[in-house]
């Protein structure tokens, strides 16, 4: 019942002369374009875009959409990504006139509503972080990391300190070293200990007065809370360094413990994860950062300030911190996503926020419990909001890889977990159920995994069997990259 015709490439559906959107004539009288623009600047023909009708466009993209798995359709336990339910009210509110159609250069007196919301968002994020100052500029987590590292760099520079090193554990997400490199730091990687936690002794050995920042994800990427975080922080501060908390896993600890309280000096949020962005097939995100007071003067701006009040109402305005590192991007931030996070927090309140983490952690531990008799759990038998199992044993004994399991899950109607991350666990399957899934779903998922573990390895190696495609050849793709369609000559 699949419509194969409609899901050809849009370019293959094109026929010269077909039209969808038309625009009326400007109505300013006839005049040669060359009277308006230099002939040398004018293109002879417009760009060779496809020519299709509106019905073409709709059938094409609607049919394509059904080839996706998504949170709205499937359980999506993609570890480290917090694929929680995206409330539909957020979509409605974010597209209200007076919200979706604000030009960023409207004068402040005309957008007091928007500024008030962004101010309140700063305040709420500060409260959850336990860190007083927030910048909403960064467009995603990685952008937040970079913003914070540049903030730290400016701070050190201002203090006349020469600090060149950023340290992180091997379990760190790839964005941590990548951001450090772009910020101009040298990267130092720590092995993680058998327990899955930071190896404190090794850390100590790397710390010195060149140490700028220690980046740590807490709970970390194997799903454990770094219980020595206070000690780690003490060690960093002792050498004058700062602790950066990668907040990708905030979903585990909302209202339970706060980065600022456990020793973090800076952190980013992934609003698209923790505060149900949504994920948009790969963004947009929003990666606001929260920092300690002494770092506030260096934050990227603009930041919303609440200034006194005229006739009983507060007045909000945009300011740049005095020693700001400057902009991280144009305009205010990924407002559309920040708004959704704001709506979410306003819906939840303190109690709801805490319930989120409690339930996320409950779900993860419950699922872990249901799997651990047949899947190896390298680190501890309790977890926070996610956990990592290893298919190493299945791989050795029966030739079933983490990838085979992941692919086969699709046939059962589940999206796959994150695979082969973190790098420190071989054949890793990183499973994050989130709080917005039912016990029934977790049971069905566990049952599917159990069944898969017993299936014929050859059959698994060819999975999935129910999708349009199966096992694309990545190697060939990379060897001869075809990154766009070109018309047959």
């Amino acid at each position, binding site marked *: 019942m699949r419509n194969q015709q409609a899901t050809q490439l849009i370019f293959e559906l094109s026929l010269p002369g077909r039209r969808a959107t038309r625009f009326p*004539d400007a109505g300013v009288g006839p005049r040669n374009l060359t009277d308006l623009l230099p002939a040398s600047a004018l293109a002879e023909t417009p760009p060779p875009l496809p020519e299709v009708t509106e019905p073409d466009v709709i059938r094409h993209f609607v049919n394509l959409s059904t080839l996706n798995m998504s949170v709205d359709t499937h359980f999506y336990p993609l570890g480290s990504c917090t694929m929680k339910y995206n409330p539909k009210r957020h979509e409605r509110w974010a597209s209200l006139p007076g919200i979706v*159609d604000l030009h960023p250069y409207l004068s402040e007196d005309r957008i007091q509503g928007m500024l008030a919301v962004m101010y309140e968002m700063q305040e709420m994020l500060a409260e959850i972080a336990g860190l007083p100052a927030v910048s909403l500029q960064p467009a995603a987590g990685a952008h937040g990391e970079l913003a914070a590292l540049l903030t730290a760099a400016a701070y050190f520079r201002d203090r006349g300190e020469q600090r060149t090193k950023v340290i992180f554990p091997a379990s760190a997400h790839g964005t941590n070293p990548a951001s450090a490199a772009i910020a101009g730091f040298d990267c130092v990687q720590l092995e993680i200990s058998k327990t899955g936690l930071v190896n404190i002794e090794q850390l100590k050995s790397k710390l010195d007065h060149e140490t700028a920042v220690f980046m740590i994800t807490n709970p970390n990427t194997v799903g454990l809370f770094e219980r020595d975080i206070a000690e780690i922080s003490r060690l960093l501060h002792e050498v004058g360094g700062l602790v950066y908390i990668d907040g990708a896993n905030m979903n585990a600890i909302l209202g339970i413990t706060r980065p600022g309280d456990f020793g973090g000096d800076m952190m980013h949020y992934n609003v698209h994860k923790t505060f149900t962005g949504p994920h948009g*097939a790969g963004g947009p995100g929003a990666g606001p950062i929260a920092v300690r007071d002494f770092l506030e003067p260096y934050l990227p701006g603009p930041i919303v300030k609440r200034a006194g009040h005229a006739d009983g109402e507060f007045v909000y305005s945009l300011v740049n911190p005095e020693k700001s590192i400057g902009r991280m991007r*144009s305009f205010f931030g990924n407002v559309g996503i920040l708004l959704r996070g704001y709506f979410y927090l306003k819906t939840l309140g303190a109690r709801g926020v805490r319930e989120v983490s409690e339930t996320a952690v*409950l779900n993860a531990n419950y699922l872990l*419990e249901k799997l651990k008799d047949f899947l190896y759990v390298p680190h501890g038998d309790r977890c926070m909001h996610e956990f990592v199992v290893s298919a190493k044993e299945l791989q050795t004994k029966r030739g079933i890889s983490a990838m085979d399991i992941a692919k086969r899950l699709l046939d059962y109607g589940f999206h796959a977990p994150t695979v082969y991350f973190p790098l420190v666990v071989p054949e890793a399957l990183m499973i994050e159920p989130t709080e917005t899934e039912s016990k029934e779903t977790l049971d069905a998922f566990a049952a599917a995994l159990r069944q898969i573990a017993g299936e014929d390895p050859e059959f698994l190696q060819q999975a999935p069997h129910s999708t349009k495609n199966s096992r694309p050849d*990545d190697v060939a*793709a990379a060897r001869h990259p075809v*990154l766009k369609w070109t018309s047959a000559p």
Partner: protein
Amino acid sequence: MSYLFTTPDQQQEMLNTIGVSSVEDLFSHIPDELRFRGDLNLPVGKTELELESEIRAIANRNRNGTELTCFLGGGVYDHFIPSAVDEIAQRGEYYTAYTPYQAEASQGSLQVFFEYQTLICELLGMDVSNASLYEGGTALVEAALMAMRVTRRHRKIVVLGSVHPEYREILSTYLEQLGCEIVVVPALEGVADVNLVSDSLDDQTACLIVQSPNFFGHLESMAELAEAAHQKGALLVSSTDPISLGLLKQPGDLGVDIATAEGQPLGIPMQYGGPFLGILACREEYMRKMPGRVIGTTSDRLGNSCFVLNLQAREQHIRRDKATSNICTNQGLLALRATVYLTLLGPQGLREAAERCCRLAHYAAERLTALPNFEQAFDQPFFKEFALRYRGDVRDLSRRAAEAGFAIGPTLDRFPGQFDESMRSLVLCAVTEKRTVEEIDRLAEALSF
């Protein structure tokens, strides 16, 4: 809470299975002194019904902003968004999926992004495009970083003073820490002086950064600038208004090596500045130096063609500190919007939109410069936006326009330190295809004081 499933009975059952007696026990490995006790200081949670009216009230507080007829520009434009764009973008299968890591579960998004890359190449006349960056400003910075990698020149870039002041700020933020010098060539006549530019380029320069139509709306002499840059072995990096390409020559035809753009005009609402779409495309030879995700075609186990994330070896999750960028989450949903938009417009639609913008903008320029208090700031060709010089206080101007129901700007005093003193009293005026002759006439009337 409406999004949770667990009933008290089920919670107990689950705790029993885990073998703990309370949810609190699940957190027992967090040292007690690090626990946050009590309730966070957040507003009390509210129902959909309550928040609906609260948020509508907030939106209404902004309405005196959006009910102004929009002649604002400066990188964000009030272009028309065909309804089919929203129809597609609001499908849960797209907006609630994530990065297409599992190709078989993501052929929808993957094909869309592959089509996006193709459309961007067709639009800009370039060879390869990535699958999106954050927005126009960071895209330009990523292009600069990429140019540094390509040329192996890490110490200097040259940027025109007619480039968006916020983009130039971002360049400083990123590059300052890397010890890269940014030479800004002023554009006192509203466009670059090619000789001045040539003088500031040298064989240590990684790239020359140009925006055209530039921040003032004017067209730069791209061919000459390309020649100047290439003579010194520097790359030409450009930023473009994608709508302008309905009329103007493509970056690929003008000697640009890395073309970037802010994709907002392509079906993306203004939403107070974001999320937008960072477009970046380049010549084939630089493909493996490109930042960001890229989709490619390949064939599957059964020989059927399909789509995958490609060239991942450039990316942070594999290459870590040697990656071509730190970007991970990009702007997928906006790339989808741009894809649908470009598909709906097609070559003729894009041309019509561009023409309408251009003709109306010229009409507006005529009308406004005929007013006693205004003159055109620069005598240069422009596309849909132009700079006016106002004989008076520009803040006053904005206020008066607003009172008459119009938003015009930005005024250049918004960007302290980014422009020459002589430009203080400039105000930009942008005209999209959404505007009409009647609106322009009314604007002219409102400003004839």
